[in-house]
């Protein structure tokens, strides 16, 4: 296989505890640490391992967002991606719009495999990979925890509610990653320097013939309902009493 395309989203870092703005207009993201969506980092790591096994020649990391997303693409290049493409767009990009942009890139790049995270940890949508596969009319293997390639096919172990499901898909295909697929490598300083010289192509979304109009409107953002403060008990007997009082045992 010649090429793997990895889709990357810039999101609020996994460790940041987000706050809802008091006026309900959204989530406060000003000044917070931003990172590659962790599932997308796993996607990139998997692509790197496939290339290191000699099963792919080139890895193209792609993202959609403001010019700030170049930082995350630079990180992807430092991890080992060969080149990067940023489709520059302002505002909220819904999964269907993202899938349409990725389809455009897929048609230009003709990758044998597209790998991306199963969900972004900001909107938790879990849609873009499936939508890209549908628009592309190609197979999808979502929630992958194991992936192997041979004879133009991918065998994928998927984490499903009932356990582990194995499926086989013909390439090209879209794979979305689950947590246990791999553990992404750390970026080394010399690689950060090298990444500065790798190509990062920035294209305005308006140049693509893609409808990016959002379909949904978010009219209010609220903090979740809080649970009432509980009680502490000192021993097992008191715990059993408390459970009996609530009629749970």
């Amino acid at each position, binding site marked *: 296989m010649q090429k793997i395309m990895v889709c990357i989203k810039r999101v*609020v870092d996994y460790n940041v*505890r*987000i706050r*809802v703005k008091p006026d309900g207009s959204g*989530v406060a993201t000003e000044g917070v640490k931003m990172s590659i969506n962790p599932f997308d980092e796993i996607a990139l790591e998997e692509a790197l391992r496939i290339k290191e096994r000699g099963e792919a020649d080139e890895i193209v990391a792609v993202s959609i967002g403001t010019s700030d997303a170049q930082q995350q693409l630079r990180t992807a290049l430092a991890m080992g991606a060969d080149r990067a493409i940023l489709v520059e767009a302002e505002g909220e990009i*819904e*999964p*269907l719009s993202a899938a349409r942009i990725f389809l455009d890139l897929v048609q230009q790049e003709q990758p044998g495999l597209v790998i991306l995270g*199963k969900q972004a*940890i*900001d909107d*938790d*949508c879990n*849609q873009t990979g*499936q*939508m890209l*596969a*549908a628009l592309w*009319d*190609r*197979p*999808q293997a*979502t*929630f992958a925890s194991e992936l192997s390639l041979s004879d133009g096919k991918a065998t994928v172990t*998927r*984490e*499903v*509610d*009932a*356990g*582990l*499901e*194995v*499926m*086989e*898909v*013909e390439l090209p295909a879209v794979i979305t990653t689950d*947590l246990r697929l791999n553990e992404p490598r750390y970026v080394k300083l010399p690689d950060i320097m090298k990444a500065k010289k790798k190509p990062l192509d920035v294209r305005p979304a308006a140049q693509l013939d893609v409808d990016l109009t959002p*379909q*949904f*409107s*978010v*009219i*209010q*953002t*609220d903090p*979740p309902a809080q*649970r*009432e403060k*509980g*009680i*502490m008990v*000192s021993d*097992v*007997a008191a*715990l*059993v009493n408390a459970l009996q009082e*609530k009629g*749970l*045992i």
Partner: protein
Amino acid sequence: MARVLIVAEHNGSALNPSTAKCVTCARSFPSDGVDIGVFGAADQAVANAAAMVEGVDKVIQVSADSSAGPVAAVLAPQVAELAAGYSHVFGPSTTFGKDLMPRVAALLGVGQLSDIMAVDGPHQFKRPIYAGNAIVTVTAPEDRPVVATVRTASYQASEGTGSASVETTDANASLPTHSRFVELRSASSDRPDLQTAAKVISGGRALASAENFDILYKLADTLNAAVGASRAAVDAGYVPNELQVGQTGKIIAPDLYVAIGISGAIQHLTGIKDAGTIVAINKDEEAPIFEVADIGLVGDLFKLVPELTAALEQS
């Protein structure tokens, strides 16, 4: 007026309870009717169970020439075909629905709403973002179908007292052959199902080994409870992945949730927010799990859990 199609989840022989939860969600706004579509190879028992869900008008069993197993790429064209004539197409926010519904939406050329947790009206819904740390109210356009997944932990299953008619139809959509189901591997267990159990006992990293989970299994058996785990315990290989509770695992809403040796990372708490009563046992009194626990007990789990099991056996 609205008309809702619900995509049934099943394993070929039994209807998954998530389907009846979607029906409850669909019935929380005015509509002309709620129908269930059964796709893929399924015994008559699946359609019959769907017909018994209260509030269902019609069950449509779609037969297609494909033995591909529950493969989204094969099911999606069939769902999209049947979706014509419906204002809403819902599936459960289980791995089945999450895999399938976005593909259906894209085939219909519409966006998809994930994890509906409350309905304000036929085109206004609430859903969680940021691992449940914020709840957004979203409006969907009225001139195109609403394709969505329903957060099953937010809804009770509609009762099984209905008597809907069952129709059979053939799929006309052309189905791809590029995707093939190979096998499902699951650890067989006699314990209640984690997603639907009234009581759940969960263990975390502090259990320290697969063998040590035995003390949890004993407690679970005493309470007739399901067993769950934190991501840390699954990553460490103490238990299989299907036991993981949290943002990327299962979102559950049992009457009783007992978290043992689980510190309570935000991603885990997302999975248990709707539990009736949360009990936490942890040796670290500063553990975040105590912030959400209704009943907390600080101490050594290896001493306290067998003690609790013994006390419950006596009572």
